[in-house]
């Protein structure tokens, strides 16, 4: 079985001075990467809009200066808002995304589908490096999987976690790791 070695590279948030506006979408602790990237750049923050997935009642994070801040309780509602902001935005706006791998996968797909690529988009991975995984054999879901390969906690098959995130299922796919030679597994690696 061929192994997928190309993990998406998420990089660092990198707001450009010459951008006429900044549109940020962050999930949870991803907002800390946003605050760090914009630290000391009040001029840029005054032209920024921040869409944040955070629990209802959470305080506005410190360090966002004059940015317009919108909190949403779930990823789905935040991405709907993000789409609406994209639809209204003009060229010159730079887009920034920060959060978990699954969040970045979903949010960057929204941006790319809108024609935003390359230096028009910066991304940064933050938060614990674990994945929600579905076993493709028994369909069991597992949260916070930290290593690959691992044994499915539902059916016991050894699973390799693929790097492709299924938006439909909201999970990464786990496929049998030792189909050809049972018991022979590649070395375990952490995400």
């Amino acid at each position, binding site marked *: 079985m061929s192994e997928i070695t190309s993990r998406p590279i998420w990089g660092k948030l990198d707001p*450009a001075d*010459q*951008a*006429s*506006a900044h*549109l940020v979408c962050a999930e949870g602790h991803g907002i800390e990467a946003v605050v760090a990237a914009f630290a000391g750049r009040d001029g840029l923050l005054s032209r920024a809009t921040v869409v944040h997935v955070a629990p209802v009642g959470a305080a506005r994070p410190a360090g966002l200066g004059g940015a317009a801040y919108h909190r949403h309780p779930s990823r789905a509602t935040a991405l709907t808002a993000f789409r609406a902001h*994209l*639809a209204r*935005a*003009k*060229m*010159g*706006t*730079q*887009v920034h995304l920060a959060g978990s791998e699954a969040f970045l996968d979903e949010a960057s797909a929204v941006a*790319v*589908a*809108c*024609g*935003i*690529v*390359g*230096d*028009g988009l910066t991304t940064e991975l933050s938060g614990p490096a674990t994945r929600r995984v579905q076993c493709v054999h028994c369909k069991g879901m597992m949260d916070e999987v930290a290593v690959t390969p691992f044994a499915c906690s539902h059916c016991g098959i050894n699973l390799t976690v693929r790097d492709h995130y299924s938006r439909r299922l909201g999970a990464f796919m786990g496929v049998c790791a030792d189909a050809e030679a049972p018991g022979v597994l590649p070395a375990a690696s952490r995400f």
Partner: protein
Amino acid sequence: MSATRYTVRVTEAEAVTPHVRRLRLEPADGAALPPASAGAHTVVTLEANGRTLRNSYSLTAPSLAGGAYEIAVLRSPTSRGGSRFVHERLREGDTLSVSAPVNLFPLHRLARHHVLVAGGIGITPIAAMAEELSRLGASYELHYAVRSEAAGAFCRDLEARHASRMRLYSSERQERLRVREIVPHQPLGSHLYVCGPQRMIDAVFADARAAGWPEANLHAERFEAPAGGDPFAVRLARSGKSTTVGEHESLLEAIERIGVEAPYLCRGGACGECICDVIEADGELDHRDHFLSPEERRAGDKIMICMSRLKGRELVLDL
């Protein structure tokens, strides 16, 4: 590049302006031509006055329909004879050989809106793009700057086809294309494509960057035909062959003439495919491409053989 070549017959040759000749090229032997996408070019081999010239020409809008390629050739006073040959010698019924299309200037399929900008003969790929976008029902606008309406190729056809999506700027009527006024209000996710003189490309990009456009959304077709220069000797170290590069010949054409295959795609100094290591240069490298950085030029150990030359006696290449 061991490119497949196709023999085509000139089935229509028409002066669309006093300086632009449109050629329709259909397969001479019944073999189908590969399909062309908007922005693609073909390399045409011209046997002009006993010399073999190979020039790149953008495929124009009618090529998208399949079955034939069309190109539009500007008569250039500085050309090495290729455009003069097309204008003065080539007749309907003559045959030529062309390469499979190569697209170094493709449309960005996911763009939310496309801004197309052409200057003069730069309209050839841009008009093909506009045609494709119109067929796809995509969002686009077309800006075309010409010296005068009489000198601009396809003005009337394009206006009929693209109507309110098109703006024509004629310098004869004192109309100036002001990119600074076009770029700021485009929806996020727009992509801009420009083809025209180098000065125009630089100016358009400068205005877009100043409005905060990222590089990834800016596309240009930069290539131009190689110009001639003083003859010089070239020696190919690996194949052990040498020759003299003639006044009207490019280094790449001279290398092909002595039977050595060198890689290329655009033949216009834009793609980087023909980069070659310089082993020795008795003289000064005359860089004429848009590919090498100023540092690479200064280092003096690389040359783009489709465009650049030597001012001096002999050049030794790793070929």
